[in-house]
């Protein structure tokens, strides 16, 4: 046995032992019998394996959801970083309150006011990205087997949260005006009739991920009224509200709730500033906020004080809306390039949304095309997207796809959509050949 080799860790020069795991496949059963229900629910899937291949360097990935981080001015970053070192070094290296830094929560009140939402700093909990806000709110309300309503399609990143906590999700279809609230009412009545009264509805009203659509004002009113009448808690996830290229902002559900306390509002700095800082927030009535806070204590005690300080200092000195305007100008061009390419390269029978903001277009192909099979074929041409199934918990969405335009250059969007168009055309030709009577 020569497990005593020593290699040098190039970064530090410190000798480290070679990685020799002592645990092998035969030991798998040891853990299987001990894993929690929560961990057992998170199994690997063909979809995940498929998406892992899309992360290779030479693939044009329209699968991501990455904001542009190259537009952030270097000088601003340097100034703030250096001032944090001079003025806040000890405190930004220290733990902070679970709720988050007071100054930052006060600044967030101002940010929400720009969208016409009036929150109090006391009602805000800083989270580690919007994703943690989703996780905390689902685990605060959902028992295993509880019925939850969500748009169909819903945010693919929320799917593992629903799965982990055992939510029984019923999807509510959406159209160009967002979630079909009339169908939500129907679903609610049906489920209640079966003794499965939904506790919460999870929705992204603005520039929804993945569909790109925005809930109309009448539907917002109707949803809030329905929630009030039936005691349904609304989880309003609003990461994209200010990533708007066209039109006027609509009031948030939180604002329409008017302090009645049926809306838990979630947002993030990931899209208006940068995702790497991992700062998001939740706004909730005090009773709910306490539970979110306890959940966060268990999860990570507090969000990074260093990045909270960074955001706070940034907001003190700069109008973040200038940065948002810079981003929106970039995204608008990319969106237009994508819509133009779709028009030119996607076949008859394909439909897609025309988002007025956000990061995504949702395209739906003729129903004989399975977008997982399409993704397998498209990978031969080095192009990737998110198959629609990833946005559903019930196996639907098989002919749809999510296309991201924010994280890819205009030239690559054109090239990527062009290649996709060719692969889709191959499927259509083959479909006609397979179904001669119907061609």
């Amino acid at each position: 046995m020569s497990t005593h080799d020593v290699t040098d860790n190039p970064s530090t020069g410190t000798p480290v032992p070679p990685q020799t795991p002592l645990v092998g496949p035969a030991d798998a059963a040891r853990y299987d019998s001990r894993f929690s229900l929560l961990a057992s629910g998170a199994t690997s899937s063909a979809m995940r394996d498929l998406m892992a291949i899309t992360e290779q360097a030479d693939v044009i990935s329209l699968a991501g959801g990455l904001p542009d981080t190259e537009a952030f001015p270097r000088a601003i970053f340097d100034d703030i970083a250096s001032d944090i070192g001079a003025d806040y070094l000890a405190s930004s290296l220290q733990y902070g309150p679970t709720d988050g830094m007071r100054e930052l929560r006060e600044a967030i009140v101002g940010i929400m006011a720009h969208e016409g939402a009036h929150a109090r700093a006391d009602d805000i909990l800083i989270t580690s990205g919007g994703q943690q806000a989703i996780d905390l709110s689902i685990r605060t309300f959902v028992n295993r087997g509880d019925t939850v309503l969500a748009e169909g399609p819903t945010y693919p990143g929320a799917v593992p949260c629903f799965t982990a906590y055992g939510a029984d999700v019923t999807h509510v279809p959406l159209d160009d005006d967002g979630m079909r609230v009339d169908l939500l009412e129907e679903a609610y009545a049906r489920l209640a009739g079966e003794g499965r009264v939904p506790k919460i509805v999870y929705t992204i009203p603005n520039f929804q991920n993945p569909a790109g659509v925005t809930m109309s004002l009448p539907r917002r009113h109707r949803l809030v009224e329905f929630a009030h009448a039936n005691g349904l808690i609304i989880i309003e996830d609003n990461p994209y509200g200010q990533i708007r290229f066209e039109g006027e902002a609509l009031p948030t559900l939180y604002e329409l709730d008017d302090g009645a306390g049926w809306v838990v509002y979630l947002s993030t700095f990931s899209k208006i500033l940068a995702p790497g800082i991992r700062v998001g927030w939740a706004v909730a009535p005090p009773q709910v906020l306490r539970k979110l806070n306890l959940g966060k204590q268990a999860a990570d005690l507090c969000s990074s004080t260093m990045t909270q300080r960074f955001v706070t200092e940034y907001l003190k000195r700069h109008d973040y809306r200038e940065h948002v305007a810079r981003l929106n100008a970039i995204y608008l061009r990319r969106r237009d390039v994508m819509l133009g390419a779709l028009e030119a390269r996607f076949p008859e029978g394909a439909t897609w949304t025309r988002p007025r903001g956000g990061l995504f277009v949702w395209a739906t192909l003729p129903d004989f095309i399975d977008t997982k099979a399409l993704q397998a074929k498209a990978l031969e041409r080095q192009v990737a997207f998110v198959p629609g199934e990833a946005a559903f918990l019930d196996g639907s969405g098989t002919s749809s796809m999510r296309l991201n335009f924010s994280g890819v250059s205009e030239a690559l969007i054109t090239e990527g959509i062009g290649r996709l168009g060719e692969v889709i055309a191959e499927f259509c030709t083959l479909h006609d050949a397979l179904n001669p009577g119907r061609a």
Partner: protein
Amino acid sequence: MSRVAVLKGGTSLEREVSLRSGTNVEAALRRLGHEVLPMDADQHLVRHLREERPDVAFVALHGRGGEDGTVQEILEILQIPYTGSGVLASERAMDKVVSKALFRAAGVQVPHGYAFSKEAFSRMGAADTLPDIQQTLGLPLCVKPARQGSALGISMVKEPGDLAAAILNAMGYDDRVLVERFVPGRELAVSVVMAKQPWALPVVEAVPLGHDFYDFEARYTPGETELRPPRDVEDDIIQEAARVSILAAETLGCRGIARVDLILDDEGRLWVLEINTIPGMTDTSLLPKAAEIAGLGFDRVVADMLALAALDV
């Protein structure tokens, strides 16, 4: 002690599985005292192999490129002995259409089926034969891409009108697809060691959890199966499974350790579905389970695979 390059990853759809296999193999090789050179099978593979000049290559790749003769041919050119089957056997095993034909010719029982290339439909009007196929084979049918290692692209056709859609779907994964009769029964896996005198590891059964019988969904849904020695199966059937599996591996000319997947139907008949020339070596794979049942352990299997490494020429 040897310098062993572990080839893993690659760009096939089974990349993730391969990385998990490779990690386990590397750990075993280190425990066995070998020097391990992990290598992702990317565009720099040949350069890395030339620079490192390993004594032997352990091929832990799955799917296209790694299991179909491609990487084996490269290793032949570089004259680096490698684990698993040679070029021709890899190609034969990867293509379910070819291996099925060879099995049948050698007297190995396989489910009846037909294969189609894309051209058959696009240039020769093969769509008109679909009703004949359903007539001959009956329902349900199993539709598979000819050369795809994982369960991706495989579907079961229960309704007459669904066959064309299933073929279209499978063609996303390969230009050739296989349509065969779905044989209901118990799923067995036999890992065969192709030493001078070939022998078989204990039979492993994949038992569905929470399903009345081993239906299609259970067979291909991860996390829903338990791997264990088959219960209530007569010894002569077990012996026959081992004999048939060795015959199947000999028929294709396999080397090293290969895994044969079979169905045991209700009447006690064995049907060979396919051979995997590079069996999965992940925590939940069948070959490691067989090694555990045999009391050999994972490391011994890895050592055997290494000992059987060779070149075609």
